[in-house]
């Protein structure tokens, strides 16, 4: 492959540099972890740091507020609250760690093995986990304490046993999910042993939910521990324990309300800290950061005559990211317009914008006119009146587009009623017959999961037809289907079009499908239409180098395994779209000029050096 234009750099300069920014650590994480670390240090260094002996009482100074001597005041026996809190932190956090360690050790190991191995071991351990989750926890803990004596460590071990069921479920689900990832299969094929696969591939991929669960367990363990010692089930007095301190404070609530503040506060703050850490880890923060230059190209102005649907300078953006950039196109009654391009070129988003189905955070500019009515900027209510009888939409995933909990019949009757049908039941069956379903009554009674992909797509088309739409937008309607079924669905679309005069906008990446059903073609690249024309024109004599290269790269029947022409590089992501020609750095025909000025769509092609039509000597061979 010849190297493309030497100077790809000016293009890079025009575009914003690829986003690679320092990610500021989550404030919640900093606060939460900060508090926990502080407590740990305090607990470890308590004998050194604590200003007083936690057990030394100063009866003369009982129930005092904070002062220079007693930073957080004193309790009923005149002991320093701050020192007692510091000394108590050790057993509080230690207990939490014991619970988590037991939970992890039991739940994680058994869970990972169960999820990975499956079979009877999985069934057995899952049932045991269910059983543990159903146990009344507090009763078990009280029982443990009654039998083994008043030591919260036992309670925390027992609690660890209880929460191990939650860890088990997480680990099992994670391992079972990762088990079916292809990279685990790949490792197996590569001869990696199961144990090593678990450590190397399975564990790292489920670490996040485990950490989150651990942080939540930590806060509940802390509260539980405090609760037990509040009930007097912890170590006997005068040992400093947080829960017992709260209990003491509650006895003197009226004489010295202050005492409750530091004792209760430290528990609340610590539990909060664990939760903050969990929250921060739960939110995967992945906001795309990208900036783009505004484009100043004039669109080709046109709402072509006779068109039923026309988009002019349509732009779709998410935040700062423009994903459809100045698309102008028109659909005519009884004809099919194909939007062709690779993934990431904005063809599906264009289709969704035409149908008014973009997610709420999308920003739409430009105009979409259906039968003289402007849809861009129309309210949801206005759009509702258009959807169905103005524009209908068929998606790539026919089964996913049907509601799994309603029968096919009822999913057809509902829109039929909306469109004013008086006999929805018979009409539903008629529609199913019309889309080529022989056993229409049977299918009407069945549910989506009972249908094959091709059958489901027929049903989806029937639903789309309930409002007799003027425009049918089909987004890769056959991509998920087998080739023989694809041919049938395309035949069906053609038939409906011939009968009803529907305008079809078909999104596809398959040039064979284009050749089969399209009348007109718009080729999209990086959010723009780079070429449009009749299907014969575009396929036989492509004018944009991208269209030419794309068509040339297709293997042809009977050609043998001669190397295929290829296109270097890949479609740039929206953040790297430049105002000048976006294909220039992959194009063999590009010159310096292509990197300097924006290129407009003129004479059906967006290129400064369109492929000369006379030079177009190669013809697509036929079988």
């Amino acid at each position: 492959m010849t190297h493309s234009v030497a100077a790809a750099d000016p293009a890079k300069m025009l575009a914003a540099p690829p986003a690679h920014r320092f990610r500021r650590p989550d404030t919640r994480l900093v606060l939460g972890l900060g508090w926990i670390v502080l407590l740990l240090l305090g607990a470890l260094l308590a004998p050194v740091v604590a200003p007083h002996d936690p057990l030394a009482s100063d009866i003369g100074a009982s129930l005092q507020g904070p002062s220079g001597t007693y930073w957080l005041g004193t309790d009923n026996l005149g002991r320093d609250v701050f020192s007692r809190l510091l000394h108590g932190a050790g057993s509080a956090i230690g207990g939490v760690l014991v619970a988590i360690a037991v939970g992890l050790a039991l739940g994680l190991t058994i869970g990972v093995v169960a999820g990975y191995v499956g079979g009877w071991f999985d069934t057995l351990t899952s049932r045991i986990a269910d059983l543990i989750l159903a146990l009344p926890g507090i009763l078990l803990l009280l029982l443990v304490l009654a039998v083994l004596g008043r030591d919260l460590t036992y309670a925390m071990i027992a609690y660890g046993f209880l929460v191990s069921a939650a860890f088990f479920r997480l680990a099992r689900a994670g391992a079972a999910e990762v088990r079916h990832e292809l990279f685990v299969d790949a490792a197996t094929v590569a001869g990696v042993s199961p144990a090593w696969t678990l450590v190397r591939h399975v564990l790292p991929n489920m670490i996040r939910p485990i950490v989150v669960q651990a942080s939540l367990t930590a806060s509940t363990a802390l509260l539980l521990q405090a609760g037990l010692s509040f009930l007097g089930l912890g170590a006997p007095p005068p040992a400093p324990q947080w829960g017992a301190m709260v209990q003491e404070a509650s006895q003197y609530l009226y004489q010295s309300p202050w005492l409750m503040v530091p004792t209760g506060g430290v528990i609340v703050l610590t539990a909060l800290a664990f939760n903050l850490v969990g929250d921060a880890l739960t939110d995967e923060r992945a906001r795309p950061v990208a900036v783009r230059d505004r484009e100043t190209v004039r669109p080709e102005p046109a709402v072509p005559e006779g068109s039923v649907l026309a988009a002019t300078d349509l732009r779709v953006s998410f935040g700062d990211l423009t994903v459809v950039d100045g698309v102008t196109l028109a659909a005519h009654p009884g004809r099919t317009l194909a939007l062709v391009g690779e993934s990431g070129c904005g063809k599906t988003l264009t289709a969704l914008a035409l149908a008014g189905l973009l997610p709420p955070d999308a920003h739409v500019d430009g105009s979409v006119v259906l039968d003289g009515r402007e849809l861009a900027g129309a309210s949801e209510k206005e759009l509702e009146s258009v959807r169905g009888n103005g524009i209908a939409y068929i998606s790539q995933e026919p089964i996913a587009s049907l509601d799994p909990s309603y029968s096919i019949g009822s999913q057809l009757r509902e829109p039929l009623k909306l469109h004013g049908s008086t006999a929805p039941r018979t009409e539903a069956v008629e529609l199913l017959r019309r889309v080529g379903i022989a056993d229409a009554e049977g299918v009407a009674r069945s549910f989506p999961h009972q249908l094959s992909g091709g059958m489901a797509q027929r049903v989806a088309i029937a639903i789309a037809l309930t409002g007799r739409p003027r425009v049918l937008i089909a987004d890769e309607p056959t991509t998920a289907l087998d080739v023989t079924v694809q041919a049938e669905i395309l035949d069906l679309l053609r038939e409906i079009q011939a009968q009803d005069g529907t305008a079809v906008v078909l999104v596809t990446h398959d040039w064979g499908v284009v050749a089969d059903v399209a009348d007109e073609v718009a080729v999209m690249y990086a959010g723009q239409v780079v070429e449009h024309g009749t299907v014969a024109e575009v396929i036989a004599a492509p004018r944009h180098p991208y269209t030419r290269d794309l068509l040339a790269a297709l293997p042809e029947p009977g050609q043998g395994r001669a190397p295929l022409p290829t296109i270097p590089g890949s479609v740039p992501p929206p953040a790297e779209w430049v105002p000048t020609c976006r294909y220039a750095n992959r194009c063999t025909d590009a010159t310096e000029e292509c990197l300097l000025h924006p290129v407009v769509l003129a004479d059906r092609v967006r290129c400064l050096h369109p492929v000369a039509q006379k030079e177009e000597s190669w013809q697509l061979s036929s079988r």
Partner: protein
Amino acid sequence: MAALLEVTDLSVRFKRTLGVDGVSLDVAAGETVGLVGESGSGKSTIGRAVLGLVPPSEGSIRFAGQEIGHASRRTRRALAHELQVVFQDPHSSLDPRMTVGATVREGLPPDRRTDEHVAALLQSVGLPADARHRYPHQFSGGQRQRIAIARAIGPDPKLVVCDEPISALDLSTQAAILNLFAELQDRTGVALLFVAHDLVAVEHLSDRIVVLYRGRVMEAGPAAEICAGPLHPYTQALWAAAPVVDPEEQRRRRTARAAAGVVSASAAPPTAQSSNGCPFAPRCPVAEPVCHTVRPAEEQVGHRRVACHLLAADRRAA
């Protein structure tokens, strides 16, 4: 010469259905065999059975003269360097948390796990040598598939099972990956079992083709010969349904397809798994009573094997 891979009467049963039903095929050293079929044809299952990812219910799989259908984990591990795989989806086939270098290194024999070797491998599939320090998400789909190919060819395998290796890729990268397979094969002499539904891509790369329908072989033989003139009614229907990139020609083919009268997949009654007939009979435009009751044997027709009663009858008549 003995075949490198020899699959004989392979059946794979899933709970109640037969995913693969008595399939035989072989791959010679350095050869590419394409497995073609629609969903439910069992083509991917055959690949997975060869790789030891699903256990065969019946039949044998011999690799380099050794039975591997029920090979122990130890045998499999010993085989790992000779038998490799490239999966369809380059996004899920690479561990997102491992660097590209670590992924490629993992499959290599211990004596070759050097940075130089990994770098050379990555360069041989058209990636920069420093790619090994990066993570899969930093690469495009086509580049990831190159990484997966580097991992597969790293230990110099004799056979690579390619399970729909280009169908998840963009059009402009499919050609590059097909070229890469061809180039690697010319250079290293690796054999490929190429599983795909894209007929043109399979024909492009394959020496021989095996056409499957509902777990059974319909037709098998030299790729060019089958593509130029499919004999089995199913192969004919499959070929006729694949659109060509030429509106005029496509119109002619459409008319011809309508005239052939293949029964629509949605109108055909589902075949009972236990039925002995030809699985394509309910949709076949030329089926006769015998097709619904007797399972057609695979008959040799020139260089091909075809499982069709009518062809067999024609040959007897001739």
